[in-house]
């Protein structure tokens, strides 16, 4: 792994996004539009907006980054550019970290826009402040990127990659505590919720909403998010093969 190549890959991915105005707009505007819609839906009940709004900020970041990353990497596998890169002095980690850096930067902008809009314009009440909320949104986005990199290895076509969204992310959404608090879930599902990364993104935003101070629970949620991200990247690097059949 070399810094030069990692940076080249990150810059290239950002360059592709820079030319693709529509994707860029979708990544940045859609979470903002959704959170505004949610605010409107709950216009009669600001308590519910305060509870669900922050949780969804984490979810949006993860979902958007997951989709964009899995499609982009898949096209890199199918177009032959990955095969060519593997004949050049590029290490697997250069590739994975390059992607993580590029989409991490996008996640930062996305998280900042969505969280800023929620707190400063829509009046979302988070005791922990905008900073920690953006942090959690960014970590969720980077986690989405890591999972997208991993999952793209199991898709042969764009159609399959898109279907991984409902197959892989929606079940996590059902058990992550958004619909029913996790300790009220049936026992087995509660265990499942501890094993799925989205739960920690949602838990972390809840912590930020409820507490003005940084809590130990929040630290553990952040550690869990980072651990899933690193785990996803490591598994992803195991699925990247220089030699293919």
């Amino acid at each position, binding site marked *: 792994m070399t810094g030069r190549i990692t940076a*080249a890959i990150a810059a290239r991915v950002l360059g592709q996004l820079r030319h693709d105005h529509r994707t860029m707009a979708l990544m940045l505007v859609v979470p903002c539009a959704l959170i505004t819609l949610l605010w409107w839906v709950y216009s009669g009940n600001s308590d519910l907006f305060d509870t669900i709004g922050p949780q969804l900020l984490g979810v949006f970041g993860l979902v958007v980054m997951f989709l964009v990353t899995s499609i982009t990497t898949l096209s890199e596998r199918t177009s032959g550019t990955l095969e060519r890169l593997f004949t050049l002095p590029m290490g697997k980690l250069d590739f994975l970290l390059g992607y993580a850096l590029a989409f991490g930067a996008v996640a930062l902008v996305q998280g900042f826009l969505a969280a800023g809009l929620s707190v400063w314009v829509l009046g979302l009440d988070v005791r922990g402040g905008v900073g920690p909320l953006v942090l959690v949104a960014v970590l969720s986005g980077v986690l989405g990127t890591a999972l997208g990199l991993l999952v793209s290895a199991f898709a042969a076509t764009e159609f399959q990659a898109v279907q991984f969204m409902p197959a892989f992310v929606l079940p996590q959404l059902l058990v992550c505590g958004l619909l029913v608090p996790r300790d009220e879930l049936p026992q087995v599902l509660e265990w499942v919720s501890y094993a799925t990364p989205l739960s920690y993104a949602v838990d972390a935003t809840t912590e930020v909403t409820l507490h003005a101070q940084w809590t130990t629970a929040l630290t553990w949620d952040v550690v869990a998010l980072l651990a899933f991200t690193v785990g996803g990247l490591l598994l992803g690097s195991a699925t990247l093969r220089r030699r293919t*059949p």
Partner: protein
Amino acid sequence: MARTELPAVAVEQLHVVRGGRVVIAGLSCTVRSGRITGLLGPSGSGKSTLIRAIVGVQAVAGGAVRVLGEPAGSPVLRDRVGYVTQSPSVYPGLTVAENVRFFACVLGVSLQDVDRVLEVVDLARYADTMVGRLSGGERSRVSLASALLGSPRLLVLDEPTVGLDPVLRVRLWDLFAALASEGISLLVSSHVMDEAERCDDLLLLRDGALLAEDTPAGLLERTGTDDVEAAFLALIDEGAA
């Protein structure tokens, strides 16, 4: 020509299985240094598979492939071998210059080299055009330009002239000849038999086996034919008889 120079590529008893089928069965051949070697054979004969084995991205079931004296795919070869995949491996969402610049950054060569290779493949005036807006032949030249970056000792080109007009084809073959005269070794696959005349050596492939390994003149003499296509058919008849 009795010099015992290290061959650019030496393939020994290569076995490749793809999709449960033996695609290359015990193939041995060499690519001589500083020459243009044409890899010819019908569609499905295993040209791309052999090329992928040489650049080290094909999982192989057996045999040995050595490139510039090193095992194929070894890290020291990665800035010494230029590879052009059969379908252009480029990013349609970037401009021509951005594509080539990216590969230059990965290779660690200077950005001035980007202008040079774009000039060589006659794409300088398209530098700021999005690759997604180019024709198939233009895209494959973007792909070729990236492979010429730096100072590769071996160029492995999988059907680089497909979809090009005759004028451009002649220009590219002139370029290949110029590169070979600088001591660069080239392995160029094609299924257009008339390109064989521009090669110094030929490898004829059929069903994953080597039908002949010879110079164009040697091949014509041996088969008593006057073009490579006829020689190819004669060799098939010979094999069937």
